[in-house]
């Protein structure tokens, strides 16, 4: 169910006015919707996020643009990997775009975010350009980590990566939240992990510390139903990941609906900022690709399952359908955005494949913070390389 806040006739009126009044008109006429999100399951919470969410046209197009950019970027990375231009490990995020877009919409750029290795989407939403992400994947000097990190190690201001070891980022997130609390800057830390990591011991240590000291930490479990190749039923004694924090309140959210994610993340952020301590969110989402590029993704799940999710719950299609059916935007506008994004990704690919690799001096840089110059011993005693921090 939905209800319109502006009448359709206003759109007709828009056509009658001249362009000079377009700014005023946009404010007057830009349609926004109050949509019902699906209800969240709650744990130790009296009430959850609001069931009705407002979506303005600008917001809708913004989320669409973000999600579509991430989608196209991931598909391009897939292509480049198959051409062996990207090597190593590459974990793609397509299918889960609503999580990144929704969370970013709910938090401020000054808030903090840390995630595991499926990080390209978050790297983008935290402000890194597609160009720098693709260049990092191909290991060039224009990459966001100067080509030294690769797929799993991308960073940005207030975005702490990009972490290879499963579950290791969660205590880090709790620590970042402690810093926010200590500095009193009203910021929160969003700490993401997956359904596989949910069984790591360090998470429970983090939950305990965060709850004990009431840290402003939003623990988010992106449950895409498979930890690499193991389905959640075979890995976890309790698949209610939002309850696994026990004494920490939790909520379970439909992670394929960007509005649900946004409202829930907003609710969680308000909870933390009010000093109520940590909160756990479980986003139920799905990834289309396998765990990584070396995993075909069909040995532990059927193609039919993937197809079903793609046709019924694809986050980008769902948003687009909603906006189209409520006349918030036209098919042409979406097409235009698609074309722009395609061009952006093509340009980024061009840069990523033509940029030179980092110079050999970079091999030894950034080991320590050092003053004076450190000599790095290596292969032979007479060949020492210099390290600068």
């Amino acid at each position, binding site marked *: 169910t939905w209800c319109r806040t502006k009448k359709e006739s206003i759109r007709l009126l828009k056509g009658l006015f001249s362009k000079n009044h377009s700014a005023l008109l946009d404010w007057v006429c830009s349609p926004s919707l109050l949509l019902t999100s699906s209800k969240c399951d709650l744990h130790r919470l009296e009430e959850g996020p609001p069931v009705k969410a407002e979506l303005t046209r600008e917001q809708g197009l913004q989320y669409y643009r973000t999600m579509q950019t991430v989608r196209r970027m991931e598909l391009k990375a897939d292509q480049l990997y198959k051409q062996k231009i990207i090597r190593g490990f590459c974990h793609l995020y397509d299918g889960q775009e609503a999580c990144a877009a929704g969370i970013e919409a709910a938090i401020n750029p000054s808030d903090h975010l840390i995630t595991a290795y499926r990080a390209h989407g978050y790297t983008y939403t935290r402000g890194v350009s597609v160009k720098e992400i693709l260049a990092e994947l191909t290991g060039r000097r224009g990459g966001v980590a100067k080509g030294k990190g690769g797929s799993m190690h991308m960073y940005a201001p207030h975005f702490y990566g990009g972490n*290879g070891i*499963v579950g290791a980022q969660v205590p880090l997130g709790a620590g970042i939240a402690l810093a926010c609390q200590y500095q009193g800057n009203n910021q929160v830390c969003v700490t993401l992990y997956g359904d596989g990591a949910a069984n790591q011991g360090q998470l429970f240590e983090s939950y305990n510390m965060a709850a004990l000291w009431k840290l402003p930490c939003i623990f988010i479990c992106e449950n895409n139903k498979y930890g690499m190749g193991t389905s959640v039923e075979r890995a976890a004694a309790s698949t209610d990941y939002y309850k696994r924090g026990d004494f920490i309140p939790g909520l379970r959210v439909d992670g394929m609906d960007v509005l649900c994610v946004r409202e829930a993340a907003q609710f969680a952020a308000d909870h933390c900022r009010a000093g109520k301590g940590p909160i756990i969110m479980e986003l139920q989402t799905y990834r289309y690709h396998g765990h990584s590029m070396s995993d075909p993704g069909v040995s532990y799940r059927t193609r039919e399952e993937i197809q079903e999710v793609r046709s019924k719950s694809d986050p980008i299609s769902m948003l687009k359908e909603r906006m189209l059916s409520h006349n918030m935007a036209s098919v042409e506008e979406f097409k235009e955005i698609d074309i722009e994004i395609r061009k952006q990704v093509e340009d980024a690919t061009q840069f990523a494949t033509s940029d030179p690799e980092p110079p050999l001096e970079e091999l030894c840089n950034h080991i320590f913070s050092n003053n004076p110059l450190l000599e790095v011993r290596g292969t032979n005693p007479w060949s020492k390389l210099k390290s600068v921090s």
Partner: protein
Amino acid sequence: SAVAITGCACSRTKTQRRHAAHFTFQPDPVPSQYGPTQKMNLFQSITSALDNTLASDPTAVIFGEDVAFGGVFRCTVGLRDKYGKDRVFNTPLCEQGIVGFGIGVAVAGATAIAEIQFADYIFPAFDQIVNEAAKYRYRSGNMFDCGNLTIRAPWGCVGHGSLYHSQSPEAFFAHCPGLKVVIPRSPIQAKGLLLSCIADKNPCIFFEPKILYRAAVEQVPEDPYTIPLSQAEVLQEGSDVTLVAWGTQIHVLKEVASMAQEKLGVSCEVIDLQTILPWDIETVCKSVVKTGRLLISHEAPVTGGFASEISSTVQEECFLNLEAPISRVCGYDTPFPHIFEPFYIPDKWKCFEAIKKMINY
């Protein structure tokens, strides 16, 4: 057009050159003393060893992440179907839990074979291995022990692994009395050494060079056999320089030995250490007494790498026999790099250079 075709070929060759392996696997001759043999690669020889173990030892269990369907490197393929899901089973994603659980299983009397998916992930379990497994016998005055525990993990560089899929952590564990650390160089060695580790009454860590899983193919005996631990193997006799390594690096050194013979007329003795802890001091020292020069090579960073232990012990034992300072050709003291891997690893040219310097010292 012709230009486009040339351009394409150039970039392909460049890519191929960049991605060529830094070694050539050199198979051992077919062993005749262990019965009929079969062509197997490294992961198949591991499967064969585990198969033999599960068949002969009713208490043996294999567990780890994804071992049920065969493992990410296919080392446990077919075992669950053959021996049942109570003997080959998956654990959730928790290394500390896996090893701790394994220690418990071993102490209670069953043979536990735990798999850690990559050696890079072994660190959450470090406390359990070092503080619990290694010290069990000592602290209980021999009343309890977890000798039935064997931990297997894929190890070493693989060409594109970067920071967290390429590490060689043997030096961390070499510092811990109570453990045995073993690294094979080939399928025949792997099966024999793994069966020895499983039979050995001490907790063992068995690192398998992941780059050799498919690349190394040999004729491996089908029946079980053991290769003794703590015995280094002299692969090639020589009189001028002793070369010591383990795992993948042996194949690099074998090539270096033939390069040295060809280009410098230098005769090299190549030794595969096989067991890192406790290591065969006698064989290495005997060799250095004969040749007077020692080169040790490993992928792990040079500072604190296992070459430092060998170097220090050899200079203690063979000081007057040394003609030149001991060379350690190892990885740089940096995290294992992403794009810089070809520059980082101690390839044959760096080892060759070191031999030249030692000869001309």
